[in-house]
């Protein structure tokens, strides 16, 4: 009776401060989500240790007999400027060979001791040498999906003797939520995890 409706609303919300706070938080999250989703800032491939180990899901590490030496990683991609464009964001990987070395080192979670060849550490007699050639690496978005691909050719050798050569392809298609840096890094880690799993299976026959 003659009550101001605005006053009624104010009174109601003051009675439920938690509801008001929840709505504010929800709006803030939605806004943050939209801002990240509309970002045009470039994305760089990162060496995120925790993320990679999480996505590998390796078998329990048991030390294998042979040590693996990464002899060389050669980037033979024709188009190296960028990895792709995700939403409005350009994905750069200026350090892609280093990123690949970093990923291959994760073979230690499959039980292999992995080192990079340098002038200080000459390969031992029983060491298995890996030479990697990167053929393709890219990411693309289409419709509501995001897909990444890496193709690498790996040569296995011991004591200067070529034991085998194989092409590995990793490919993953996921839902593209907000074209974020985490999503891009996560999908590339998962793609390379597929390659690592295949390499670890093949290593068993050479070790």
């Amino acid at each position: 009776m003659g009550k101001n409706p605005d006053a009624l609303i104010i009174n109601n919300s003051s009675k439920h401060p938690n509801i008001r706070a929840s709505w504010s938080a929800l709006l803030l999250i939605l806004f943050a989500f939209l801002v990240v989703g509309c970002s045009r800032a470039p994305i760089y491939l990162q060496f995120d240790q925790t993320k990679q180990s999480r996505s590998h899901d390796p078998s329990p590490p048991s030390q294998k007999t042979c040590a693996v030496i990464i002899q060389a990683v050669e980037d033979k991609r024709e188009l190296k400027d960028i990895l792709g464009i995700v939403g409005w964001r350009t994905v750069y990987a200026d350090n892609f060979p280093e990123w690949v070395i970093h990923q291959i080192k994760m073979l230690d979670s499959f039980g292999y001791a992995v080192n990079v060849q340098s002038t200080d550490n000459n390969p031992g007699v029983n060491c298995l040498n890996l030479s990697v050639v990167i053929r393709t690496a890219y990411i693309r978005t289409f419709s509501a999906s995001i897909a990444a691909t890496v193709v690498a050719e790996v040569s296995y050798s011991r004591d200067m003797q070529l034991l085998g050569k194989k092409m590995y392809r990793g490919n993953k298609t996921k839902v593209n939520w907000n074209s974020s840096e985490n999503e891009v890094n996560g999908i590339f880690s998962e793609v390379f995890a597929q390659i690592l799993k295949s390499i670890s299976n093949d290593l068993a026959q050479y070790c």
Partner: protein
Amino acid sequence: MDSLKVLYGIVFFACLVFFCSCSSKKSYVMNASALKEVKTVDLCIVLAQQEIFAEIKQSNITQYTLGGAIPAIIDASIDHHRAKDSENSIQPIRNALVDYDFGKHLAGKIQAELNLVNTIKSDKVTFTNNIKKEGYKKEFAESCAQAVLFVSPNYYLSPDFKILKITGGIKLFPTSMGSAFDPTDDNQCVYKDSFSYQESAENSVSSKESAVGYWSDNSGEHMRQALDQASADIAKKIALNLNQ
């Protein structure tokens, strides 16, 4: 009677306009005098994709149900499922073409044709996969020629994998405009064109699986032949237009 004459007159005039517009050859040369000045051309292939992909048939439940969040979510999930399926199915074709570089083949053909044009010399070829303005600007800034010819192709399969499509655009920009260069401003280019080719395997295949086999067998022989043919046709088209 007079009104009938007027009507005949209008119909005749309309037919005249229609036939004249249809018979005239559409010119893609935007600036003929500037084009005549161009003696050296750098070729830049702007290729966003590194491997072939397939189109996705978009789900349109939202359209039929007149909008709403739930149909949109259903559409998104159907599209994602189709995308995942397509990416998995296309792997044998990608493996068969792993050593085939479409950009390089296209560039080789274009450069050979350009050098047959008496007035133009093309020595330098560059490649970029950065389709944003910055990608074009970088290549443009590094050019020492009088003009840069940007060719931006796409090659992909239809959703059922039966048709190979090669589409794209061609733009020739004079380097004299320097820092004012804007790849999106068509008024700046002296020659602009587009291309669209299709190679169908519909007579040879009955299903998506057999189409995968058709394109990937013998190290992707059919696919390589089709892409090579399209490259040759694109190159001839460019040379013909620049030789006017």
